[in-house]
């Protein structure tokens, strides 16, 4: 122990201890000399004799030094210094190698850290692996369940040792004290056992119990998150017992949750929690879906067992509730619901569903980038090894062992990898920011976490793997030379096998690059197909923002407040036209209604479901979609005037056979209360639900005849959305704290957000594809230039013998093309398999998309020609006399 400590200390004081040892040995020799002289020797004789007695001074000193410090570390430092000097002498090589590695390592780190945050990191709760979430599908909405269903699941203690329910995370205005300003905070309503079941203790005060969640509106309590407590209250314990304002309620703070706990969602974090009974929802209504159920599996209960049991329970409930509903359309939809039991330990994430596939694809892509980068660096190292053959031969003949040279070469690789990792980490940070810009503004951000241990370990593992990939083979190959042969032939003796290895590496590089380029081309083509979807309207610059009023307002209050607001919008400078729609273009959400169409076979026996939208006058004018038949709504369509509707072309195709003019049709919503609705117009199909969605038969109804409490305000403006935003926010604030307005953005921005996965994969894939092409070009150029230089004499002789220069040119180009074709022969079949895997996320094209594959092949062939052009021209302009004279 102590010996090691002294060794480490000695390692850092090497120079001083060396001097000490020198002095000590000098003193020893001097004393010995003195003694010999006293015995009568002459000075030179005494000196020689003293040295003989001592033995080898240098050997003793070396043995001493070896025993003193940490020899392996000293050699490593020496190797590192040597490698550093070598790299500094070749800045071009060093920059190319470090950049290649930075790219490969950085891309992997960036994508992996997102992948890890979204798909792998578990919640900071006790035994997250036991948690499952109950995800409702079909019917109306997704995920959330009803409170009665929660009660029933909680009773199944044979499956779950604990079951909690929670709402989504909702915005609310938050104020404490009377003087402090209010802020928008995030609240989550939870059942009383939420904290206990998750195993989250209070930091101070207490957390909810079941007694805090018994009666609707009777438990005005709040538990703060640790972060919110620190930020808003400075971590003061006086917060306990304080009464704060959440929305319109006054609630009392009873505690703060443990540090690090940020709720069960990955993308969004609540600032505080309130009991579920305070959510303003009806806990007795089995058809009101507002509670997300999370269970903790009993030991020994598997997910599939839980899934089967819960599905049986849910189907029994559905049958009891809806089995005898007279409306067959409603019954069908209601009975088609299911509950999936999913892994819950990684938390809930709305982003995960839409983002997991693109991230997984990108993980594969960055692997290919790393492989291509490693192949490139290996190639550069081999070229360098070839250039240093003479030096290596000299060192081998001077007695350096091959192991020692391999070790030195690997040290150089490690140094390159370390620099690549450092640069790559920066690149990853920058790249991640770029990727985050693609995410929709409303999706929250699960990636805020500081550098994570797992990600760090991954990066280091990647770097070490890279060294193994690109460093080992060149180190081994470059030192496999016969020094005598090499020195005799003046260094020109070519490692034939090294050259073969370089060819293999280039072929591999082309193969990796072609896979990346195929992926990029597929996603690019798919995005182009999405972009060319007929939107059915022209004015993508229309500005839209949501305006939501409380559900409990009466319809006439809602419409008068909204009417006033729209008038004020019209008077804003730069605004030329205003309208309103529910839900509005690309806002998400939809409503539907069952309808009978006279004369249609489809609705002869039972009504059909169609989507509905409620719109104000000028809606179609503002988005630039003139009705193809009839008219749009006007101010004269009031609640007193005859009921009217506009339908889209899909509706027409499905329900209205050709015998009767569409505008003469009258629709029936309900047989019980005949209330005829006349079709007054037909509009183009507009993919409101998203570009990928199938267009449903849709009916537009006037707002005046079918009130809506939420929806989107549409503006046509001469000024950009950003400039209008402050004025819009001011006007919205005048409507009071219960009304909320979103940030105004153009429909184009919303469409972009709705296809963010496609844009992200296409852009990032294209970026990587381009880089891979560049790497392949560098690799090809290196190999071709090297082999042309080695064949200079042969080419000189050929030209002297009368070979045409164009023949020589083609000879070199052909060599490069052969390598590219070799790479394509591997890359294209593998890409076909990969393309099948990603086919589900492609839009409008098949996995074997001929455009993508043909463009990949031609781009790579072009790269092959371009990379070989300079070496080929140099070879073709060889002066035979000059080359032959050099020998």
């Amino acid at each position: 122990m102590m010996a090691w400590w002294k060794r480490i200390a000695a390692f850092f004081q090497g120079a001083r201890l060396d001097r000490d040892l020198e002095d000590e040995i000098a003193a020893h020799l001097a004393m010995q000399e003195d003694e010999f002289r006293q015995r009568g020797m002459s000075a030179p004789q005494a000196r020689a004799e003293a040295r003989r007695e001592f033995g080898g001074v240098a050997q003793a000193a070396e043995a001493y030094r070896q025993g003193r410090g940490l020899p392996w570390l000293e050699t490593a430092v020496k190797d590192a210094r040597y490698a550093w000097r070598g790299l500094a002498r070749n800045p071009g090589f060093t920059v190319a190698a470090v950049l290649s590695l930075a790219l490969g390592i950085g891309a992997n780190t960036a994508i992996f850290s997102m992948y890890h945050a979204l798909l792998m990191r578990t919640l900071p709760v006790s035994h997250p692996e036991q948690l499952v979430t109950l995800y409702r599908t079909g019917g109306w909405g997704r995920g959330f369940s009803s409170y009665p269903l929660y009660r029933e699941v909680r009773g199944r203690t044979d499956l779950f040792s604990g079951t909690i329910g929670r709402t989504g995370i909702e915005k609310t205005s938050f104020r404490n004290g009377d003087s402090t300003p209010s802020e928008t905070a995030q609240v989550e309503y939870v059942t009383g056992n939420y904290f206990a079941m998750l195993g989250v203790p209070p930091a101070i005060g207490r957390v909810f119990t079941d007694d805090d969640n018994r009666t609707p509106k009777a438990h005005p309590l709040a538990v703060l998150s640790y972060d919110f407590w620190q930020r808003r209250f400075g971590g003061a314990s006086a917060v306990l017992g304080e009464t704060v304002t959440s929305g319109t309620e006054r609630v009392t703070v009873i505690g703060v949750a443990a540090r690090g706990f940020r709720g069960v969602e990955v993308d969004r974090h609540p600032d505080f929690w309130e009991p579920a009974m305070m959510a303003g929802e009806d806990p007795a209504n089995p058809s009101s879906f507002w509670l997300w159920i999370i269970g903790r599996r009993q030991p020994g209960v598997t997910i599939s067992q839980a899934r089967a049991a819960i599905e049986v329970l849910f189907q029994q409930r559905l049958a009891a509730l809806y089995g005898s509903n007279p409306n067959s359309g409603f019954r069908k939809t209601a009975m088609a619901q299911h509950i999936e039991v999913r892994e819950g330990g990684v938390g809930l994430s709305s982003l995960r569903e839409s983002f997991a596939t693109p991230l997984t694809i990108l993980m594969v892509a960055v692997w290919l980038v790393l492989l291509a980068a490693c192949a490139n660096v290996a190639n550069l190292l081999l070229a360098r090894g070839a250039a240093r053959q003479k030096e290596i031969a000299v060192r081998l003949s001077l007695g350096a062992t091959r192991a020692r040279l391999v070790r030195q070469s690997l040290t150089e690789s490690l140094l390159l990898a370390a620099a690549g990792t450092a640069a790559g980490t920066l690149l990853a940070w920058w790249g991640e920011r770029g990727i985050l810009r693609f995410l929709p503004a409303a999706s929250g951000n699960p990636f805020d976490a500081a550098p994570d241990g797992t990600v760090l370990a991954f990066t280091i593992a990647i770097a070490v793997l890279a060294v193994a990939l690109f460093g080992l083979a060149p180190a081994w190959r470059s030192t496999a030379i016969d020094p005598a042969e090499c020195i005799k032939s003046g260094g020109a003796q070519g490692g034939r096998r090294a050259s073969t290895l370089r060819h293999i590496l280039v072929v591999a590089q082309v193969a990796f690059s072609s896979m990346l380029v195929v992926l990029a081309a597929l996603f690019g083509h798919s995005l182009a197909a999405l972009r060319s979807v007929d939107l059915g309207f022209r004015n993508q610059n229309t500005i839209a923002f949501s305006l939501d009023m409380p559900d409990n307002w009466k319809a006439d209050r809602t419409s008068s407040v909204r009417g006033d607001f729209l008038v004020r919008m019209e008077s804003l400078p730069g605004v030329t036209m205003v309208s309103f729609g529910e839900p509005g273009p690309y806002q998400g959400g939809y409503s539907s209604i069952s309808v009978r169409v006279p004369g249609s076979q489809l609705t002869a026996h039972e009504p059909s479901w169609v989507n509905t939208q409620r719109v104000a006058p000028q809606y179609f004018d503002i988005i630039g979609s003139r009705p193809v038949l009839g008219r749009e709504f006007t101010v004269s369509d009031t609640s007193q005037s005859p009921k009217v509707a506009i339908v889209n072309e899909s509706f027409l195709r499905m329900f209205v056979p050709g015998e009767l003019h569409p505008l003469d049709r009258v629709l029936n919503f309900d047989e019980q209360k005949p209330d005829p609705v006349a079709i007054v117009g037909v509009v183009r199909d507009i993919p409101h639900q998203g570009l990928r969605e199938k267009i449903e038969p849709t009916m537009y109804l006037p707002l005046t005849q079918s009130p809506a409490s939420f929806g989107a305000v549409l503006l046509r403006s001469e000024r950009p959305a950003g400039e209008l935003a402050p004025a819009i926010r001011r006007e919205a604030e005048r409507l009071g704290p219960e009304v909320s307005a979103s940030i105004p953005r153009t429909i184009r921005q919303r469409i972009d957000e709705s296809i963010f996965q496609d844009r992200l994969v296409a852009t990032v894939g294209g970026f990587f594809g381009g880089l891979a092409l560049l790497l392949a070009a560098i690799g090809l150029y290196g190999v071709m230039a090297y082999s042309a230089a080695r064949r200079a004499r042969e080419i000189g002789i050929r030209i002297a013998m009368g070979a045409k220069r164009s023949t020589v040119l083609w000879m070199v180009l052909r060599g490069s093309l052969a390598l590219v074709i070799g790479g394509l022969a591997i890359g294209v079949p593998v890409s076909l398999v990969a393309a099948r895997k990603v086919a589900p996320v492609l839009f409008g094209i098949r996995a074997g998309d001929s455009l993508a594959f043909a463009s990949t092949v031609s781009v790579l062939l072009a790269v092959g020609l371009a990379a070989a052009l300079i070496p080929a021209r140099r070879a073709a302009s060889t002066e035979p006399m000059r080359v032959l004279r050099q020998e």
Partner: protein
Amino acid sequence: MSTGAAKSDILQGTLDLMVLRTLESMGPQHGFGLAKRIQQISEGALDLNQGTLYPALLRLEQRGWVRSEWGTSESNRKAKFYELTRAGRRQVERESKDWERTVAVMARFLRPAE
């Protein structure tokens, strides 16, 4: 890690004990004095390269059995003096006993058969 640089005819552990024992009997001493003393006591029977003494001294110092200090020699030269530590004294005692036992056992083997 150690190379075969110390080509002495004596075992490494033996040299260590010789050094420790010499320091015990002579008190603080510099390397040259130690080398001379060891040669004297062994009456030239040992072919000792004086240089090999220094790695041995280093080893002993690393283990905490001796400590060193720069001082002035009897001939008024600057020299490094080595001195036994308390742990060194205990080590001499332990090692000496081990040696005596080994020697006794070996002696029994080497006694002419009766």
